[in-house]
């Protein structure tokens, strides 16, 4: 696939055209942070950002997502409901794209979740390299600071222009339709690689071991007192999961009209950190304490998802590190502590 360049000024006017003809979700300022939101004007777009409050998953797995609709009267009937619209996500960072790769594995693997799939295939992804990483991010050490090859277009800010890597035929079409490009020169590609390399060195948080070792570390850590130490402080507020790009758990509920004639079944985001997540009707709660839940979450991120879906469940974005008000949610902190203490505590 080709690599091209475009002048920044040209790029921004192309974005204006893109907005005219498409539903474009881009990164905007949300003081003191940034957020994905529907773009109305090109001036709103901020491509030089460190982190967004929420990952762009909301466009693939909306907070509430109807699954079926039904009629109860005059006759019972059920229909599946899939809402999707052609969408462009503009400005995604590499770690968030890695997360989408994981979602793809979860929702379009052996069993296909049509609600996800319909939206996913209607969504074009234009990403951008994160050259000035966020204080809390540790994507470099998770190996997620550079994009997996599932993007349509990928931008790198070279100063006066963007270097654009075309990743798919949809990207090709977008580029043809909207962008004024020249092919990239070798020196520009070298420049990109250098910028990327520099950015990797700019991450302030990092794992003390390679990400591949996390499952092994966790294998020996089930009874580590760290879980208790952290878990005691947990609010069970689910903030860490709400901001996480790889959290996919959901609850399912029914809604019915006041005249009891029609209704809808929808899913909505749930969290394994909530007190009642594992509670069954008999009253049994299989993960009754904050400690149990915190440990489960960090095992899921560091081990279970990898074993089941082939990707680590943490992409190192750092959102949970910052979101947790009692500073206990950080995977990098927990994994590093476990590495340090691995020799001091008996394994389970």
């Amino acid at each position: 696939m080709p690599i091209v360049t475009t002048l920044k000024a040209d790029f921004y006017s192309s974005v204006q055209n893109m907005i005219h003809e498409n539903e474009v979700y881009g990164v905007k300022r949300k003081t003191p942070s940034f957020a994905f939101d529907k773009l109305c004007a090109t001036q709103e777009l901020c491509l030089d950002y460190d982190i967004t409050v929420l990952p762009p998953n909301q466009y693939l797995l909306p907070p509430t997502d109807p699954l079926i609709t039904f009629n109860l009267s005059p006759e019972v009937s059920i229909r599946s409901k899939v809402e999707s619209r052609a969408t462009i996500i503009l400005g995604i960072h590499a770690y968030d794209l890695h997360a989408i790769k994981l979602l793809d594995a979860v929702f379009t693997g052996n069993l296909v979740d049509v609600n996800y799939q319909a939206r996913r295939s209607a969504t074009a992804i234009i990403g951008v390299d994160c050259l000035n990483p966020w204080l809390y991010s540790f994507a470099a050490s998770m190996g997620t600071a550079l994009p997996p090859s599932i993007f349509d277009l990928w931008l790198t800010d070279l100063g006066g222009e963007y270097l654009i890597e075309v990743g798919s035929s949809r990207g090709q079409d977008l580029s043809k339709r909207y962008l004024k490009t020249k092919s990239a020169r070798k020196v520009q590609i070298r420049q990109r690689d250098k910028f990327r390399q520099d950015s990797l060195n700019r991450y302030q948080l990092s794992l003390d071991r390679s990400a591949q070792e996390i499952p092994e570390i966790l294998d020996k850590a089930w009874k580590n007192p760290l879980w208790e130490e952290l878990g005691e402080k947990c609010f069970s507020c689910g903030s860490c999961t709400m901001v996480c790009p790889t959290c996919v758990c959901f609850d399912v509920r029914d809604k019915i009209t006041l005249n009891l004639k029609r209704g809808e079944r929808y899913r909505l985001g749930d969290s394994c950190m909530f007190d009642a997540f594992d509670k069954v009707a008999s009253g049994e709660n299989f993960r009754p304490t904050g400690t149990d839940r915190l440990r489960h979450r960090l095992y899921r991120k560091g081990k279970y998802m990898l074993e089941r879906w082939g990707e680590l469940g943490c992409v190192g974005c750092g959102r949970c590190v910052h979101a947790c008000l009692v500073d206990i949610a950080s995977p990098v902190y927990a994994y590093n502590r476990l590495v340090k203490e691995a020799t001091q505590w008996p394994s389970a």
Partner: protein
Amino acid sequence: MAISMKLESSLYLPKLAEVIKVEPLAEKEKLFRLRLRDGNRLDHTPGQFVEVSVLGIGEAPISMSSSPTRDESFELGIRVVGNVTRALHRLQPGDTVGIRGPFGNGFPVSELEGRDLLFVAGGIGLCPLRSMIRYAIDKREQFGRIILMYGCREPAEQLFRGELVEWRQRQDIEILESVDRCPLDAAWEGSVGVITTLFPQLNIDRHRTTALVVGPPIMYRYVVAECLKKGIGKDQILLSLERRMKCGMGFCGHCQINNVYVCLDGPVFRYEELTKLKETEV
């Protein structure tokens, strides 16, 4: 541009089923006989479950109680505990429910062929086991001994009393029954005490026997210990687990135990597998 697709392939789309018969089993339990509106069979394996919807209330995972060896209808034994089950209990013949599934692995039926089957049921646990019991009865010649150990809290809580009478009369099934306590006015011929008190009377060939255990979580630890004492292999003790469950397909995350999903990898587990899971203390 909004595209609203109606995809019939959605895994969340239940099939409509009609209630053809409702039978009380005990104070809080009823047996529902259902048939899919499209006339198709569910073709389940004993031990599998379905997601039953009462539209407008919600969905609940319920084990198949009937054997696939019979006609195209199927049966679910349901205890009232909350919203969906309460709504189910309000249903009358002719009413409609939604059914998704069957889900889960079920019992390893072909592997069980030729073996002695020790069914250990606690309370509502008889519902899922009944599916396998009836399967074994219908294909009686394919299996060795069939032993049913059934424990309840009180005689009045026994489910499938009519069938128990039938089974007791058969020569080819052995039945051991217990109740935790027995009111003075109740007629009761079985033992009094928790289900494990039945084990001393049990004589089995430990090499030929597979135990199929379903009951409340606290029962498992004690029953497994007894089975092990009898010399049944860790891989020949099968347990069906209950967890909170929403989708039934490994997406929603609720039923996860360490890295296994009860809905996909279970609900039937070998005890041996469970010993490797740190979150189940069976």
